[in-house]
């Protein structure tokens, strides 16, 4: 064992002399996670505010409603959520929609208020930006809600709408009896709606005792980052094992065959030093996840066990992979393909549940799935029970891969093929 540790320590010193590739391998998952956090939130500063809805407003109507809508779009509640660009007509509106990358253009035609007051169906238009896919749908949903509120508001005014409009324009104030009747009727309707609609009596909220899955309880980065971490570790592990094939080219390992160390000790020391680098990278990536993306990794003991198993499984897998390829080029090609396919199928980017049913089962044969899912469970506050199956699967994979990888590498080494 002492020989293996000495060899591994020397190998680590050699690797530490050129840390560039390791640092670059660490930078890739961090860069991807950083972009995700900037775009969708989840950093230490909390979730990012959703981008404001950029809307072009073309108000051809000159009734009081247009003033109300224009004012409402600029009040403090909508500020920061809605960015309204004004245009004088449809043509200018369409030009602004395209040039300023707004989500949609809302056009209120001439006579909109009049139609509404006089009991005809009032129609307004929403023209969506075809070069966007998400925000135009948000604008449409908002416009549908506005349309419903205007309908409810019209119902509230009842038959007194025309009289009230006249009053707003300075007419009808001399008819005190009619005025009193209209106000009494309006008061009655407001009384019926009060406590029902202002604000609405029904609201949605988080279910009790379900913080992980509840609305708003889902932490995007705590879900996404473990996947990035696993993928990054696999690429890093492959890079470390690639070192064996570089040594094969330089003939340094062959020369060790005439040294007073057994072949298995050389191979074991190489696997051990690679595991130590992967382990250090795992700790660094977890630290970066906490520091930059606010990921809480959960209970220490299950986390330590899962982490150790992940490191062992990743190292064993990469050892086996590089025991099966002949050249560095083959190693690069095969490891890139295998790791990328495992990451896609294993749920690094998209949960397996979102895949077609026929493909979901494939996630369970990937190491990525067991690794990042265990970290995700722990990050969501769960403990031993939630990760027991993951730990068993990772342990089985680690044992099988390390054994097979080490034996195959030793055989190649003894034959002088390493």
């Amino acid at each position, binding site marked *: 064992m002492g020989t293996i540790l000495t060899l591994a320590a020397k190998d680590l010193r050699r690797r530490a002399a050129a840390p560039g590739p390791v640092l670059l391998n660490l930078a890739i998952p961090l860069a991807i996670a950083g972009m995700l956090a900037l775009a969708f939130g989840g950093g230490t500063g909390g979730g990012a505010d959703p981008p404001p809805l950029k809307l072009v407003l073309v108000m051809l109507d000159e009734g009081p409603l247009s003033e109300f809508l224009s004012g409402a779009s600029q009040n403090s509640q909508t500020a920061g959520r809605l960015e309204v660009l004004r245009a004088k007509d449809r043509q200018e509106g369409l030009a602004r929609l395209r040039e300023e990358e707004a989500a949609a253009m809302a056009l209120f035609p001439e006579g909109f208020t009049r139609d509404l007051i006089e009991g005809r169906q009032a129609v307004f238009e929403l023209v969506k930006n075809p070069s966007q896919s998400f925000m135009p*749908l948000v604008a449409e949903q908002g416009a549908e809600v506005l349309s419903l509120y205007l309908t409810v508001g019209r119902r509230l005014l009842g038959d007194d709408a025309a009289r009230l409009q006249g009053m707003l324009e300075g007419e009808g104030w001399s008819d005190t009896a009619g005025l009193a009747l209209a106000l009494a009727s309006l008061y009655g309707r407001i009384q019926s709606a009060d406590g029902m609609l202002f604000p609405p009596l029904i609201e949605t909220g988080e279910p009790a005792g379900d913080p992980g899955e509840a609305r708003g309880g889902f932490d995007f980065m705590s879900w996404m980052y473990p996947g990035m971490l696993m993928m990054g570790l696999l690429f890093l592990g492959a890079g470390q094992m690639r070192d064996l094939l570089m040594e094969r080219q330089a003939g340094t390992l062959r020369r060790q065959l005439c040294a007073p160390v057994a072949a298995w000790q050389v191979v074991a020391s190489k696997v051990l030093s690679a595991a130590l680098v992967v382990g250090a990278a795992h700790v660094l990536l977890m630290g970066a996840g906490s520091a930059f993306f606010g990921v809480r990794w959960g209970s220490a003991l299950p986390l330590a066990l899962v982490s150790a198993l992940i490191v062992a499984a990743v190292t064993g897998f990469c050892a086996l992979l590089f025991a099966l390829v002949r050249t560095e080029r083959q190693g690069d090609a095969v490891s890139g393909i295998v790791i990328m396919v495992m990451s896609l199928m294993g749920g690094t980017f998209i949960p397996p549940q979102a895949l077609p049913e026929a493909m979901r089962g494939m996630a369970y044969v990937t190491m990525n799935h067991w690794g990042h899912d265990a970290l995700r469970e722990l990050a969501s506050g769960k403990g031993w029970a939630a990760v027991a199956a993951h730990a068993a699967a990772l342990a089985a994979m680690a044992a099988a891969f390390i054994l097979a990888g080490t034996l195959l590498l030793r055989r190649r080494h003894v034959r002088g093929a390493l």
Partner: protein
Amino acid sequence: MAREDLRLTLRDRSSIFWIFLAPFLWVWFFGFLARPADPSGRQVSLTVFQEDVSAAAERMIELMKGAGLKLAVVPPAGERPAKAPARSITIPAGFGESIAARRKVTLPFSQGRDANPEGTIAVEVAVHKASVRLLAEEAFGTLDPAEDAVKLESSWATDRPRPSGAYQTIPGNLVMFVLLSAMTYGAGLLATERRAGILRRIAVSPAGRTDIVLGKLAGRAAVAAVQVSVFVVIGLTVFRIDWGGAPAGLALLLVCLILCAASLGLLAGALFTSGDAASGAGVVATMVMSAMGGCWWPSEVMPGWMRTAAYAFPTAWAMNGLHTLISWGGRTPEVLPHCAVLGLIALAATLAAVRRLDPAR
């Protein structure tokens, strides 16, 4: 020199995977499997746990159905699904009584990990609309949606394809993988050649410095051109992508993208002396530029400052140009500004690479 570079790249199995196979695996996975072609055309599912049997609860369910949701209703004594649904809402016991007594009532709403945000917004809006309509009916009597006082007419500014499904992933991956190949394999190969002293040896040949740099640039452009051609052809034949009505504009934009990617690959290769370092830095730079430029997701979901900052990178100009042609049906003159910016970036990167690439050093 360009032909030789192309030959060397195509001989490498790893580069074949990353240049020609990985992009389509990516496109297939994200564009074909994970998203339908038109998210606005699908019905969003919602499971309703009905714990109240009042008329108000029944009406609420009816109104949610009318709002376009695909409902799975679990009645009060019904068996709950073994697996938690993607989205669920509970109509609690005493819902009807609370409405009649004008007491506030909360409908617990849950969403699972696999619930996509577009669907969740649609569900929240639909539930809100159903509850407002229910309350308005309680206050004023029946409120038939067909007789609403206000009607919304919604349409798209053009009838062109929107950037979702393959229309987001094909342009996005085209831009990303062309840059990725140039900035990893292109840059790595050049850095390795410099380290091995191959450029110094070429310098003693009759080829001048300009010939060498242009040859290397053309080599990277040749690989990018092959990659872009494969993307366009597969887009047309497999994914049936409508690339817009301005083939000249599309060709010009893609040529500018190719030159820009090739020159950035050349610059990255000139900046690093180790192939691994050049490739690694190329991956990181490409990931950042692609994410900010709207290759990974629709750029409108990013904060405003990121959208503005993205225009410092070629990815944003290329993606905006492609959306202009594909989704707005733009003509060639409309992508000339995009081409000009990409061309300027290419020129600046080439000049910087020329300064660094002195074959005598």
